[in-house]
């Protein structure tokens, strides 16, 4: 029997139609429903989405059974009932808009590949060379300088791996199970090594039952830098308001939403964390935003900053979190146009109240929980957004960027 994967079309009629204003919310969740979904199209009727057309890849013919298709239909309808229809429609709220009306050039990841400056290393994984390396280094240098110019800011380097128990400290897996990357290794035991090797040789590759040999799940790939900072200050009483910056690799499983340099499973963040009094955290976030916007103007990058929310995996509690985050404006995103119709979030500016202070027992003087906030810039996204607006030819870049990149090797 032919066991090669087969693609098939199926239509899913929605039990409850989705208002067109929630289309984006539906779109950003669909690929997490099942690995088989390769692509989808929303079928609209007036102001509602009433069906979905899916292209699915089935493992083999037996899998493409009516039962499996029926289960997929059920899962999509469950997603809509639990995750999408429980949301409310928020109007777009813009805090800042760049005075520069830049139009994105005709750039794409395919063009970067054709030019030999970037290449795909696998789903969600991208490598790149010059001039993107220089741009990334320069942007990071400027962002680091902004952070280090803030009173008392200290820089740290953190490991790529993070203990699973750190993520459990603030119930990460209940909010974002879909993003988690666990680090597997063979259990430290001679019998396990022998048995693995035997199966590996028999199988001519990694055996299907690999995880029966991996007893450890005590490490994850870090989803962002700031979690390391909270761990660093765990069970401490802060002597003063604190600012920490770091740069490092971050990892999130973005399913089939991964796309070129726009959305990676493995990416780099420059992060700045504020810890201490409420006013200090909010004022620091505000001050950093102001400086970041000025930097965008200096780089001649058009865009805007708007109220946003995280994509929490839906439970009654996380839906409440998402709605509250949005109403209270605890998250802002800096978005940059990358083509005629789409924009990319290159940074976020977040306020967490005492959520992390309470979870990690970080106290202020006097014993009250510390407030926290953070700023995160996705460096690959910033670089990609810049070349979408200015192209790859350095001679056509704004003078400030050209000069700054030229100085990379002098600093």
């Amino acid at each position, binding site marked *: 029997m032919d066991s090669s994967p087969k693609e098939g079309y199926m239509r899913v009629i929605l039990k409850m139609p989705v208002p067109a204003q929630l289309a984006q919310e539906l779109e950003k969740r669909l690929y997490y429903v099942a690995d088989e979904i390769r692509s989808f199209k929303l079928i609209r009727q007036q102001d509602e989405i009433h069906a979905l057309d899916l292209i699915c890849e089935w493992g083999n013919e037996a899998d493409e059974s009516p039962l499996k298709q029926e289960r997929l239909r059920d899962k999509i309808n469950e997603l809509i009932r639990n995750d999408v229809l429980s949301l*409310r*429609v*928020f*109007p777009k709220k813009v805090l800042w808009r760049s005075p520069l009306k830049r139009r994105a050039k005709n750039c794409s990841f395919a063009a970067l590949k054709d030019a030999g400056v970037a290449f795909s290393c696998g789903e969600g994984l991208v490598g790149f060379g010059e001039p993107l390396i220089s741009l990334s280094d320069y942007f990071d240098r400027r962002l680091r300088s902004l952070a280090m110019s803030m009173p008392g800011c200290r820089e740290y380097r953190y490991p790529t791996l993070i203990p699973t128990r750190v993520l459990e400290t603030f119930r990460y897996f209940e909010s974002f199970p879909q993003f988690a990357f666990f680090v597997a290794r063979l259990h430290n035991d001679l019998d396990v090594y022998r048995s693995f090797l035997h199966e590996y040789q028999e199988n001519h590759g990694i055996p299907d039952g690999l995880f029966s040999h991996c007893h450890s799940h005590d490490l994850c790939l870090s989803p962002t830098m700031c979690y390391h900072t909270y761990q660093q200050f765990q069970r401490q009483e802060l002597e003063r308001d604190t600012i920490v910056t770091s740069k490092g690799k971050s990892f999130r499983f973005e399913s089939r939403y991964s796309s070129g340099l726009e959305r990676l499973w493995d990416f780099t963040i420059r992060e700045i964390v504020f810890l201490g009094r*409420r006013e200090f955290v909010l004022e620091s976030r505000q001050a950093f935003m102001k400086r970041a916007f000025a930097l965008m103007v200096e780089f001649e990058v058009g865009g805007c900053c708007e109220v946003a929310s995280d994509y929490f995996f839906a439970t009654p509690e996380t839906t*409440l*979190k998402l*709605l*509250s*985050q*949005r*109403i*209270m*404006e*605890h998250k802002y995103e800096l978005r940059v146009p990358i083509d005629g119709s789409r924009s990319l979030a290159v940074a976020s500016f977040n306020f967490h*109240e*005492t959520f992390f202070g309470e979870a990690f027992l970080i106290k202020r003087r006097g014993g009250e929980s510390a407030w926290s906030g953070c700023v995160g810039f996705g460096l690959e996204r910033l670089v990609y957004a810049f070349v979408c607006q200015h192209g790859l030819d350095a001679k056509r870049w704004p003078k400030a960027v050209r000069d700054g990149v030229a100085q990379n090797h002098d600093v």
Partner: protein
Amino acid sequence: MNAKDEIRNFLQEHVRSCKLEDSQDIFAEGLVSSMFVMQLVVMVEQKFGISVEGADLNRDHFRSIEAMAAFVTRKQSR
């Protein structure tokens, strides 16, 4: 009981640490967590028969007894 009294009673049930002033900002003073804002949204919808949608979903309408009462009155008069 008028809207302001009902809102005051509801909030005071959840804020035990002090007697609330009508103009007191419950979020800025850390008297409740931000998650509480959704309880307030649902409460005004159910208690006063109004619908809170779109631009109404704004923290400024929910930050104090005074702000909520004004918001409810405005919605009811439409």
